[in-house]
């Protein structure tokens, strides 16, 4: 070969030099568990659906959402969003308004009439679902997706369970509830209203291979309060249920609600809307011990509801007209339990509503062998199955945390377990990846963007009407809110690793395909992992 003057070797490329042999540690792409997903009782892949919402593809985002939860418009209104409590963005400015984006997606789906993706091929198996509350609907939906025939028996004349008969309209408009239930029926879920199951074993013989119990807990707990005849002592469940009848319950001018949970708040706010001049909550402990969610307490106080802390009702129906009650002041002992002080106060009350919790009606299970009931709740194993093979349970009747979201999660988990059981297998959930904690991220890369607040209905309007209190986001601020997501622990294709590698050892595979390391040349410096905004790269020691 002819070479120029003084040149003895042919030019070569440095690609011959495999610098990967220098490496003592290697980078690896990982998908870590975002804290929102970890906190979601319904097991939603929140980061996953926000990813699509970020690019403005709301339909794809909604489809990703309903893979886990068929009720986004409902959930976007009534969920207490533990996801936002876990959100890593709170360490920067404030948590992503996941709940409001979920509601936006749910409303978009209802507006445009989006349908669920087609179900799997029919398996020929039939599963009975008892109760059409969130647990039952969720179980029926997931069973249908898997190709099983889900048949719901509902005792009430309308579907929805506590979503209809427990949650006030100002938090969940009924048309939203109806639309999402109708979508499930269109999907193939069979619903029989006013069908009470009195004997599970007998009903199962009508051609069902398994059963899911989701009868809820709708029997109000009572406390013994001596009361004269004139005073009205009601329970919260029947008051809220009565709101669905033609005639609203008559509570009077001055309503006292006894209890400190979310139901107590719901009743007090409902009473105010029904025209009560005074709506007072009597609770035996302090605000920080109150089981009701803080923002609901805050909204109630804004609406003019007053709360008597550290108080119990000792007697009702007092006085000539029988409309006085006696309240005793309490004091917390060193263990935080309220103790009576002997200090009494007399109050006027047209009605007293007890909101002291609910029990499940388990009478339909009386003859089922193997079932274990403990403290009013049915015992289930890790796969949601009761002591009787083929009988599964979830929702309020099977858990201490009684929310719509938890029930939806129960329904999904039970459906998966039923599916496994029908195939003669045991349901084993996939192991969870490690948590995408904030210290694994590089927050430098995220733009500053505070949370978009949803409009809150004017105080005056919400004191008198049952209009929805929280408004929704519109297209522009929903997109803004979605883009506040930091995609914790999951690659969102920002190209940082591809750019920052001094050795050009990251291969970009193209849109939607992410990246790959070229270990022939990667020296293991670790810049990619340090500069990955979302913590989707980990560094591991090379063996030998």
């Amino acid at each position, binding site marked *: 070969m002819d070479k120029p003057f003084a040149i003895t*070797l*042919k*030019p*070569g*490329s*440095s*690609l*011959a*030099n*495999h*610098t990967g042999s*220098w490496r003592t540690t290697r980078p690896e792409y990982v998908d870590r568990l975002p804290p929102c997903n970890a906190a979601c009782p319904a097991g939603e892949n929140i980061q996953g659906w926000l990813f699509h919402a*970020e*690019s403005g593809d709301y339909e794809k985002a909604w489809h990703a959402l309903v893979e886990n939860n068929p009720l986004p418009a409902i959930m976007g209104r009534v969920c207490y969003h533990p996801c936002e409590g876990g959100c890593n963005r709170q360490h920067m400015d404030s948590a992503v308004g996941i709940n409001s984006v979920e509601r936006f997606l749910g409303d978009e789906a209802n507006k445009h009439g989006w349908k669920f993706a087609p179900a799997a091929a029919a398996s020929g198996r039939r599963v009975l679902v008892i109760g059409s509350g969130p647990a039952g609907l969720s179980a029926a939906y997931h069973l249908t997706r898997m190709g099983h025939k889900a048949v719901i028996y509902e005792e009430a004349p309308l579907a929805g369970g506590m979503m209809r008969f427990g949650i006030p309209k100002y938090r969940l408009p009924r048309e939203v509830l109806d639309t999402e239930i109708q979508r499930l029926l269109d999907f193939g879920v069979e619903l029989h209203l006013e069908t009470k199951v009195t004997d599970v074993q007998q009903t199962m013989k009508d051609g069902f291979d398994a059963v899911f119990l989701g009868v809820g807990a709708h029997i109000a707990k009572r406390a013994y309060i001596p009361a004269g005849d004139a005073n009205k002592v009601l329970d919260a469940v029947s008051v809220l249920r009565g709101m669905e009848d033609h005639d609203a319950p008559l509570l009077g001018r001055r309503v006292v609600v006894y209890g400190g949970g979310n139901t107590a708040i719901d009743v007090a706010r409902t009473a105010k809307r029904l025209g009560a001049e005074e709506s007072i909550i009597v609770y035996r402990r302090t605000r920080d011990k109150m089981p009701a969610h803080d923002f609901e307490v805050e909204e109630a106080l804004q609406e003019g509801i007053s709360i008597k802390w550290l108080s119990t009702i000792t007697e009702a129906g007092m006085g000539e007209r029988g409309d006085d009650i006696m309240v005793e002041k309490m004091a917390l002992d060193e263990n935080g339990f309220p103790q009576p002080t002997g200090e009494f106060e007399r109050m006027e009350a047209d009605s007293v509503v007890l909101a002291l919790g609910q029990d499940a009606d388990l009478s339909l299970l009386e003859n089922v062998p193997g079932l274990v009931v403990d403290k009013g709740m049915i015992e289930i194993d890790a796969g949601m199955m009761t002591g009787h093979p083929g009988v599964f349970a979830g929702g309020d009747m099977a858990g201490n945390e009684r929310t719509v979201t938890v029930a939806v999660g129960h329904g999904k988990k039970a459906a998966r377990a039923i599916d496994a059981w029908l195939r003669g297998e045991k349901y084993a959930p996939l192991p969870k990846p490690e948590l995408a904690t904030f210290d694994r991220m590089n927050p*430098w*890369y*995220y*733009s500053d*963007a*505070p949370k*978009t*607040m949803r409009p809150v209905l004017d105080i005056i309007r919400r004191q008198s009407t049952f209009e929805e209190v929280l408004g929704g986001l519109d297209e*522009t*601020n929903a*997109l*803004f809110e979605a*883009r*506040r*997501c*930091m*995609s914790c622990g999951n690659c*969102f*294709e*920002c*190209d*940082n690793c*591809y*750019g*920052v*590698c*001094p*050795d*050009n*050892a990251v291969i*970009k595979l*193209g*849109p939607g395909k992410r990246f790959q390391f*070229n270990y*022939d*040349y990667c*020296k*293991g*410096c*670790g*810049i990619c*992992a*340090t*500069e990955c*905004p979302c913590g989707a790269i980990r*560094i591991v020691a090379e063996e030998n």
Partner: protein
Amino acid sequence: MSLQPVKFYQTGTFTVGNRLLAPEERSVQANMQRTNSLNSGHRACQGCGEALGARYAIDAAMNATNRQLIAANATGCLEVFSTPYPETSWQIPWIHSLFGNAAAVATGIAAAIKVKKQKGQGGDVRVVAQGGDGGTTDIGFGCLSGMFERNDDVLYICYDNGGYMNTGVQRSSATPPAARTATTMPLGPEPGNVFGQGKFVPAIAMAHEIPYVATATVADLRDLEYKVTKAMGIRGARYIHILVPCPLGWGTASHDTIRMARLAKETGIFPVFEAEYGEVKSVLAIRRPLPVEEYLRPQKRYAHLFGKSPAVATIARIQALADKNIRKYRLQARQGGH
């Protein structure tokens, strides 16, 4: 709260790419068809800031000139690690002559191109000269100043890592005060490098009143690419000074290279700005202000400042230098920024 801009892209332009941005709004480095001017297999240390800065800058220059580019290189790490005869990592026309003459070689190439064009041969090929701080601020300074003074059509890029790292971390005129090097040991009453007037070549380049002078770091890719692209759109002498942390010489973890450059900018140690004809035109404002300790502490070359009794007075002097930069270049954090 109600008046938020609708346009918000999650990471904006802080990350290398962003799938939410239109392709033309993404960086050169995000492009799968980038030149990769400095290819894999080079012999730079793990986490080398200079290798990264050089690929960032030359890829941007290649993109801006439609790949019609020749680079002259001074002696130094960049030359040694990229081109051990007969191999090279460069995927562009590239020449190395001596330590001190990169600017002069580039001037010659530019002159040759000019003559060829006058004779109707060859297209519009542009020239870049590049070197480390040793080859620029010390050994090649005379040639560089001459190139500026003649306003030759060359972009000179200096990759500043604050010393002669390739030969064992000796002091250069760009080594910062108090830093330990092999020739400024942490001994005596004033350990490490002296507090002198320093030699900040961007300011000297501005004094030549050349068309364009800019500083950049490997921590702000978009800014770096913007400046290289802008420089390639200008005729005449141009100078870009890029801060490139050196894990070996600075005693930092290899994975902290970009973080160190970011800290240098955020503490005010290294002002990032651009100037035209001797006047500062814009600066990259500090986004999250930090005291200089945050920058100094992770570096082993400053370890003697953080012994059993921290050298409070020395740290205060370095802070004063950073504060002076912040005042002089108006780097204070503000809304929006560059």
